């Protein structure tokens, strides 16, 4: 059950953690963007931001990651795995859509085989979320079962209220951090409730989503795919900025007879994602690739893990070079349910 304690501000959390010599990652202004980067001074963190360019994904599933070093000849064989010890890390100030994405992704990376790289990073990291006070009309988190003040995925969620800031503690990690930060004063449930009401008013873009998986099951072939998705030019901007997209590639980078095996981000929207060595490609036309994206996120993942592989953060819409609005596609599907 969530516990509510008063906290001074997100900046104070950063300041205290830095003074305890902990590794802190916070939003940092970089030109016109905000990016989540390690900070060593409280002043470098800028919490007056809407959304960061990248999600937290990169700290658990890096864009490129070495998984094995090898040196193999007939006479000498050596395999070296990276040491899976990661420093204790605190991510402070991430939006609820980004935090929830982690608990959604956890389901896959711990399904059957456990991805040790992902898990070691997750285990060593505490997430301090920051509830939103602003949304634009590309945000659709409420249609994905979340909210601008959802605690899903955050160990502690900091919420700005009429009385100041509250820390909503949801997990053991959150409790541990709360005592580290010496938070003692109880917060008011009514204060939190009112902040929730305000958060609920932020999202202007909403559609009914519960019928979408069912429609997708029966409409793999439908003229909607061609008419709405053909303009996709097949880059990976949406996939790589998405906090829940996690498909990856495994490649070898040799240097002579030794080298490194790496795990890299990959995207189903790219043409070569499913290409066979023979040259045959089961998804040879772009709309088929975009269809896979939608089916995976809103049908297959729901089937297997019970959640949408999407938190409605809206990055895909903002970043698309040709303004293909994924929420528009979902709204269209929703209207046909």
């Amino acid at each position: 059950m969530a516990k509510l304690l008063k906290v001074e501000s997100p900046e104070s959390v950063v300041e205290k953690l830095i003074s305890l010599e902990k590794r802190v990652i916070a939003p940092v202004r970089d030109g016109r963007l905000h990016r989540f980067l390690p900070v060593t001074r409280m002043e470098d963190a800028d919490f007056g931001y809407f959304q960061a360019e990248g999600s937290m994904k990169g700290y658990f599933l890096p864009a490129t990651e070495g998984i094995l070093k090898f040196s193999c000849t007939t006479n000498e064989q050596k395999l070296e795995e990276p040491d899976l010890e990661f420093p204790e890390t605190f991510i402070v100030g991430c939006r609820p859509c980004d935090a929830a994405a982690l608990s959604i992704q956890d389901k896959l990376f711990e399904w059957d085989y456990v991805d040790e790289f992902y898990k070691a990073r997750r285990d060593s990291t505490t997430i301090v979320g920051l509830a939103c006070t602003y949304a634009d009309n590309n945000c659709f988190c409420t249609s994905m079962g979340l909210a601008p003040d959802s605690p899903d995925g955050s160990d502690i969620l900091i919420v700005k209220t009429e009385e100041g800031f509250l820390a909503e503690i949801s997990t053991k990690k959150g409790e541990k951090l709360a005592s580290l930060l010496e938070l003692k004063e109880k917060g008011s449930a009514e204060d939190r409730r009112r902040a929730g009401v305000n958060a609920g008013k932020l999202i202007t873009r909403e559609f009914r989503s519960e019928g979408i998986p069912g429609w997708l099951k029966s409409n793999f072939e439908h003229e909607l795919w061609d008419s709405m998705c053909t303009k996709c030019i097949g880059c990976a901007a949406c996939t790589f900025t998405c906090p829940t997209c996690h498909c990856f590639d495994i490649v070898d980078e040799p240097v002579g007879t030794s080298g490194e095996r790496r795990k890299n981000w990959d995207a189903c929207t790219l043409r070569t994602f499913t290409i066979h060595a023979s040259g045959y490609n089961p998804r040879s036309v772009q709309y088929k690739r975009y269809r896979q994206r939608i089916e995976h996120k809103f049908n297959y993942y729901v089937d297997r893990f019970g959640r949408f592989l999407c938190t409605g953060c809206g990055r895909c819409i903002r970043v698309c070079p040709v303004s293909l609005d994924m929420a528009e596609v979902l709204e269209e599907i929703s209207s046909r349910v």
Partner: protein
Amino acid sequence: MIEELRKIARDLLTSKKVGVVIGYAFVKANSNRTTPIFVTETEDIERLVFNPLCLNNLTVYLTKKKPEIQELGRPAIVAKGCDVRSILGLIKEFQLKREDVVIIGVGCEGVVRDFKDWSGKLTKESMPTKCLYCKVHVNELEAKPIEERRRFWKDQFEKCIRCYACRQVCPFCYCDRCISDKTMPRWIESSAHGRGNFAWNLIRAMHLAGRCISCEECNRVCPVEIPLNLLNREIEKEIQEKFEYVAGMDTETPPPLRIYSEKDDDAWIR
């Protein structure tokens, strides 16, 4: 002007002179953003617009990257001045025949640099560099010592996530199998580390030498805001100085890197 544009599009479609009109429309959920549309039915003509939010270089849909568009029939395409230069370039590279496309040229007085820079009206500050007199930024960087320039690009490319938005949006990146996708041999490492990114971005810029017309779409679409086109402009400058050539001005002048001329500077051969 919009009425005239729509009338031309309607006439072309109904007379069956074209099978599709490639143009711009407002995004349904957001009247501060446009998106490409492919009009094949006359009832969709009313969606066509032209205004300073029409950023995309639609020429990418004429290339062989989008065969499903080519199948819609002979295209008419709404093109700004900078976009027309890429059409001319494609004709010069035998990707397109002049008679196979109807160019609906629109008088453009500038577009906004990116949708998020739109404040309701076009201002000098919100225009991309291509719309202003363009040499300024290139000269600034060129004036710095080479180590500083190398550090600048090294830092920029650390940010690159290899999403290939720059490549996919570029009308001249239409190779059936891009060099970065080739595995036999693996010319460029696919990993998004500094080394692979540096190789990728530099090689792409070199492959565009003498072809890029600086539509700056690559700048606009980069999710991590790397000023990619700056690299292309530097190369453009070199091409202009060495070969007195500017890309995309006509379809006859042979591109310098395709043709050997006795006048070519060979002082670098020692």
